[in-house]
């Protein structure tokens, strides 16, 4: 016999006058291979059309359906109800502006973060459209691709106690992003320039190594090793910045 699931869902619409934050319960019969994304759509179609949540790709690629599922930031589309108990508590991702119910504005956060990191290839070489493309070493390309798999879902920020405490802390997504540019041979920025961006308390030296980010990342990005790599690199650069024989 199918389980009867109880969904306790955070409801609050900041745009609506008179709306106050609270939890509301919905009941749904579990079907085979039911995932949270489908369950939420069923609830919205059959029980409450005003329920707000985000989704787009349904395949763990867009990162839009990230939310806190029974205490853990996860993607709704990649979470089967069979993995969860009968009572499922859904909250919006903390650390982002609440749009309404389970929907948060991760886009504005990531845009600001990427602007702060200057998240693009910095080069002074002129682009020649007729020249043959410069081939990148395969291993380097794969290392960059590994980090580029980040879908900017925001789970790492939602799971970071430091980011919750300090809204100016850029978090693991940012460190992973800058690590990608540090690897890229086309980016001509020096370690000193990278240091100016992330060698701060808002960057890598604000990280306390709690590793919530690493443990919840739905794409299994190697965040622990990347954070340590950036910290060592920036730590070395900090010493070079003060040691007279390195200064120039």
């Amino acid at each position: 016999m199918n389980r009867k699931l109880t969904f306790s869902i955070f409801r609050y619409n900041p745009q609506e006058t008179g709306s106050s934050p609270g939890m509301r319960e919905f009941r749904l019969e579990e079907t085979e291979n039911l995932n949270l994304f489908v369950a939420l759509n069923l609830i919205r179609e059959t029980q409450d059309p005003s329920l707000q949540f985000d989704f787009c790709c349904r395949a763990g690629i867009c990162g839009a359906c990230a939310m806190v599922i029974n205490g853990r930031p996860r993607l709704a589309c990649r979470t089967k109800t069979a993995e969860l108990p009968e009572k499922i508590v859904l909250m919006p991702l903390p650390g982002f502006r609440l749009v309404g119910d389970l929907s948060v504005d991760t886009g504005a956060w990531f845009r600001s973060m990427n602007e702060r990191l200057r998240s693009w290839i910095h080069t002074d070489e002129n682009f020649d459209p007729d020249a043959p493309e410069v081939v990148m070493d395969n291993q380097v390309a794969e290392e960059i691709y590994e980090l580029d798999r980040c879908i900017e879902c925001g789970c790492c920020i939602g799971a970071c106690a430091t980011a919750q405490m300090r809204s100016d802390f850029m978090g693991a997504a940012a460190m992973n992003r800058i690590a990608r540019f540090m690897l890229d041979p086309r980016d001509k920025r020096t370690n000193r320039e990278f240091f100016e961006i992330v060698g701060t308390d808002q960057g890598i030296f604000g990280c306390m190594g709690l590793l919530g980010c690493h443990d919840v990342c739905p794409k299994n990005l190697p965040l622990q090793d990347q954070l340590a790599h950036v910290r060592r690199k920036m730590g070395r650069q900090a010493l070079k910045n003060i040691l007279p024989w390195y200064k120039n």
Partner: protein
Amino acid sequence: MQYQVAFPTASGSRAALLDLVQMLLGLALVVFMYLHALFVASILLGPQVFNALADFFERYYLAQVGGPLLALVFLTHFFMAARRIPFSQQDQKKVWTSTRMLAHRDTWLWTVQVVTAMFILIMGAIHIWVVLTDLPITADKSAARIQTGFWLGFYLLLLPMVEMHVGAGWYRLGIKWGVIKSSARNKAKRAEYYITGFFILLGLITLARFMFVSVS
């Protein structure tokens, strides 16, 4: 109006140096605390061995100079690490809510680090003061102290606080600076539990032995 998140630009050198110094002082204290536990446990080999070791440290001024230096390192480490401790009620609430929500081992471990740090700050300072203002260290004096009044209870509380803090400390340092890779994290975690357990047990046996040293 487009929503913007403020990521202010900030000068990094200070943050980086504080982090580096915090790491080095933390590491020095980890090494010191483990050696301290082993040296104090020399009482298990007899009061003569304990006294000989204490005498060695004093003859070469390691206690007289090293002691105050250690107190300085201890306090500096606290001030460095205190940059991360949420002192405002609002921040404490945020961290507490986040920690409880996640139920995540390493995030809880940080709470353990902060709480034990507060105990160690007060109790460690008392311990350092009591020992350094009554040099030389002898098995007789240490045993008399532990056998008097509330001191046994004091050390029974301080011991697990220190060992949990030190264990979590080296694990966290290893994670932060990449000495412990993600592939070795679970192994390192297990090692931390075993090492912490070993030193708590060693400390308990040492305290028990001090209870039975006959004080002249």
